[in-house]
């Protein structure tokens, strides 16, 4: 998996898993610790949930044990984000909707 954050539209920040060798991704930050489940657009089936729905979204986490991730990306709300699978195909694209800071930075990316 590879996460691209377009904080600068012309120079996306790229994050890969820590197991990826630097030589394999010299331009990427190996801080991508998790890509959550992809939630497709879901409409409720209950009466109480009528008139509500949920956009497709996915949560990714970046290792922030040394605050390196939060220092780098700052507050990238509404920044375009793309997730590419290991085959190089675009897996999901959206915008950063929420950010949780901690030892990991959790980014909710919504379509």
């Amino acid at each position, binding site marked *: 998996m590879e996460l691209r954050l377009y*904080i*600068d539209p*012309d*120079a*996306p*920040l*790229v994050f890969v898993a*820590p197991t990826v*060798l*630097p*030589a*394999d991704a*010299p*331009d990427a*930050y*190996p*801080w991508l610790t998790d890509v959550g489940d992809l939630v497709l657009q879901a409409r409720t089936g209950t009466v109480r949930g009528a008139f509500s729905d949920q956009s497709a979204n996915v949560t990714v986490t970046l*290792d922030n*044990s*040394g*605050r*390196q991730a939060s220092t*780098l990306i700052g507050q990238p709300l509404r920044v375009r984000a793309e997730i590419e699978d290991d085959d190089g195909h675009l897996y999901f694209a959206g915008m950063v909707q929420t950010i949780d800071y901690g030892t990991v930075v959790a980014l909710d990316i919504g379509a």
Partner: protein
Amino acid sequence: MSAPQRFLANDRNLIRTATLTPSAVQAVANAVIETPLARAGSAQLKLTGSYSGIEDATYDFQIEDLASGTKLISQPVYTGVGSETLANVASTTAAQDFTLECHSAGQPAVAAAVEIEGVSIVARAGGVAGNGIHVNVDVSGLVFTASNFSLIEAVTKGAGADASPLIGPQYDWDTAAMGADGLIPSTAHRFAFEGDESNVYVGYKKFVDNAWQYFTVPGLLNDYAAGTRVLFVSGSYTVSIIDDGGSPPVTDTLTGVVTVYDFLNAVKTTSTLCDVDGVIANDRSPTGQAAREFALRTEARALLSTGEGSKAATGFIDITVEPDANTELVTAECIAIDFKLDPQAFVGHEAWTLKGSVSGVLGTIYTDEPFAGATFGLTIPQKLPPTTGNSAGRFSLSGVQYASRDAGGSEVEICFAGKLGPNAVDQTLTLVYTARPPEGCNCESMPVPQLNTRCLGGAGSDTAMGYSAGAQTRIDDLYDWVSSLAGKVTRYVAGKGIPPYPATTFPPDSETASATVSGDGFSSTKTFSSSTLTGGTDLLTVADIVDTGYADAALPAGFTALVDQFDSTLQLIDALGTGAPQTAGFTAWDDALTAIQGDLNDSELSTLGHRLASVASLKYQLMLRRSLAAAGISPLGKSSASTQTSGDGCWQDYGDAFYWKVTGTDGEYAPAFTNHAYWSSRKNDAGVYFSTKEFAFILNVKCPQNLVVGDTVTLTIGNAAALGTYQVGDILKLPLIAAADQFLAGGIDANAIQKWYVTGSVDGAFAVYTFDPGSPSTYFNGGLTLKLVMGGIDPAAGDTFLFSVIGARYKWRKNGGAYSAAAEIPSGATAFDSGLSFTFIPGAEPSFVAGDTWTFRALQKWAVSNLAKPDRKRWFPGVATSNVYAEFASVQTLDAVGIALHTIPEGASITLTGGNVLAVQDWSETIVWQAGAIVQFLSQLRTALWVQLNLATADASSIGWLWVGQAATTALSADVTLKRNYSVVRGQAGGLYQGGAFLGKSVSATVSWQEGSLTEADAAMLSGSLDYVKSNNDEPILFVPQFTRPADVLLAQIVEDEIPLPDVFDYNPNVDRPRALSASLTLQGVWT
């Protein structure tokens, strides 16, 4: 001795404070992030390239000032509706602002169209050719049948509409009731009101609020008077859609059109020329297309005729409109209702002045006499006063006074019978028996010139003849022809000189053998000689020509008499004044003239003289009499010039030697003759008698020979005042509408060529940019180059691009240092530092403003400084052989080296060299590789001012943490337990196979000093390291359980944030007594 455990925490790491210099750092792409800053200008600055600096850096760029050395083009600013863009803009001009404005955006083909009945009829083919398509409506198929219904009361315009129904049984004209479906039945009558056949309605009724309400579709379009007849309408329209411009012309004929729906449906389904742009619905609801009569009219037609003034003035009848009628308002104003103002006017025969707003004055017409003009015809309806059937008034013989008679003469009985006419007025008539004047003394035959009215305050002309325009034209035609004929029969006699007539055109060359003659009879100047003048076939050779010796007109006497009769007859007809009788007379007179001109044509001059001499006078005299009869003039009455004339034939001169001179209150009437019926008549301006329609009588005298001149009869008229109908000043109106086909309009041919104005603020106007989207061309003019690129939306006139030719100077700095020298902003990318290039992108004006600053962060994720902290940021040289040089502030002592979070491959050569003096290597240690963390204790205690870690054959190597220094230990050994940890994510649902996802592994340990085995010094060392790692975000440390087994090293974080340090003596002893402390640490291995 010390304990076997070793602690390598970062607080004791010499690398952390050393100056590090790597042999290489992997350059990183997309590593420059701009820091948002506010700027006055709109230009942008981009940094590109892979950043090869060894550490993160900041770059500041700033606009120093504006300059004009380098020509930069600002980003064009576009305003308009199109989506076109501007590309390839370049300029060698002076710095200035440019405007590119669309003057003409080309034109897509537009189909001609016309709105008919609320729906657009559109030409199927686009372009101007469609403007020639026109729609013609033939209404001849309509049949108007008088119904048994009429208006009981007047209705006003707009009545019958949905909001203003007509209520009452008087509006039920066999009206169909609307069905429950809200539709008008197809059996509903179509109807019109008499006199307004241009508007056809459909009627229906609804039962609302216990009453029938009557509606018309559409609502009434005019006011209609009470009594107006309702006409039922049947039949249909034939609509032609015509394109004359095609070759051959095309006509779509749509037959059977009754409603709007019929028309639209026919156009949609059958027309090759037009289509319908809109919804077509077979809807018979009151507002539906199938309920509305097709209302388009294109023929010349009359609208509803109206009247003003008296109640009788309601309008014209029997209206006919010719196809070439003008659009005009025809009015007739009543000018006379009795003989006092017009001798021919009487009740039921009033005189009117007819005018057309285009046709002008059309003359005087009379009630109940049809007027047939060139473009329309009409009749003023006769309106007679109510009568009981008997004559109104009293007309009686009131007295006879006999003149004195000779002896033996006897008075004679005079019987009277009379009747009053509609113009009768109360008066006393005096009839005096009078002898007719001798023939030679009759003044009636004396010529009377037309008395010009100009001097009477009128608008009369100065012509002495005073002919009407129609008569003037005819008299001109007559004498032009006669004059021409005379010229044709003129003979020149050789040797007799040139005739003096007309003297101004004939030269006085009288005695020459030849002469030049010009004038009437010759089409051009002609030279004659003796030889050519004898025996010529084109000369008159009849014997009775009077040889005067000059050119002479040899017109036979019979012919000239006939010409005189044509003249006098024309005068008699002209005297009638404008009207139908005069028109008929003129027409017959024209026939007579045409006949004689045909018989005496000059196509064969050789026989012309003979034909003139033997002209059939009687034939033409009869034709002239026929013209008098057509004009209503008794031919016999006009046959003698000495006989008085009657314009209408009512009065007649019976030729008696005696007559009764009739004198009324207002003057003299025509004379009456004994034993002959008499109709009151008076002369008009032309001296012709016309009946005054006042009275008629007969004086019967059985022995008229006994009447004596001077005998006087008195007649009395009383109570004769008749009620008038029309009154002077009444005005009748008739709007006429000229024929006009409905043309489609608005068709425009496609023209893709665009015109753009190019204007510079300094250089002024440049050549116009002519741009063809189908063949895009680049604009070159005056050093300016640009090219339009069309988008999805076409441009429109007024679309504008604004851009500037500009220049500026910039400067830059790194990490907040000193700015570079200012330089001209170059065009394109320019390399400046650590693999980076910058590019200024001009924006919209103002593009560059002095002081504008851009700040960038260049990120080096593989920075060598990453070696100083045990986190996941690594130093990555990117090459197989590399080194990193660390220089200390002073000579340091070291006994161990640690490498963690590395990706050094197995087989790589790792050495650590050092020295106490710069550039002088004193020692070298080979470090044994192992996966995971590496700790190696040096072969001996080393001192060094610098150390260098060398990697060889270490492709793809990276190191997260490099530790060099003296490892910490305690005096007494600790109890150590190692354990292996695995991070596996397992699904909650489990499943048949209880596997999980492996995330990482680590080796953890518990380290404890029990029973006071930790000295105060150990505790101080341990506390210092704890303080450091905890305050540095829980940094991991390298822990070696047994220093002779460095391979057991583990990289771990101290789990506890609260670490008890119990003293065996509970911190009670004095300061001179050492404490015996205990502690326990849990080391959680870092996942790898």
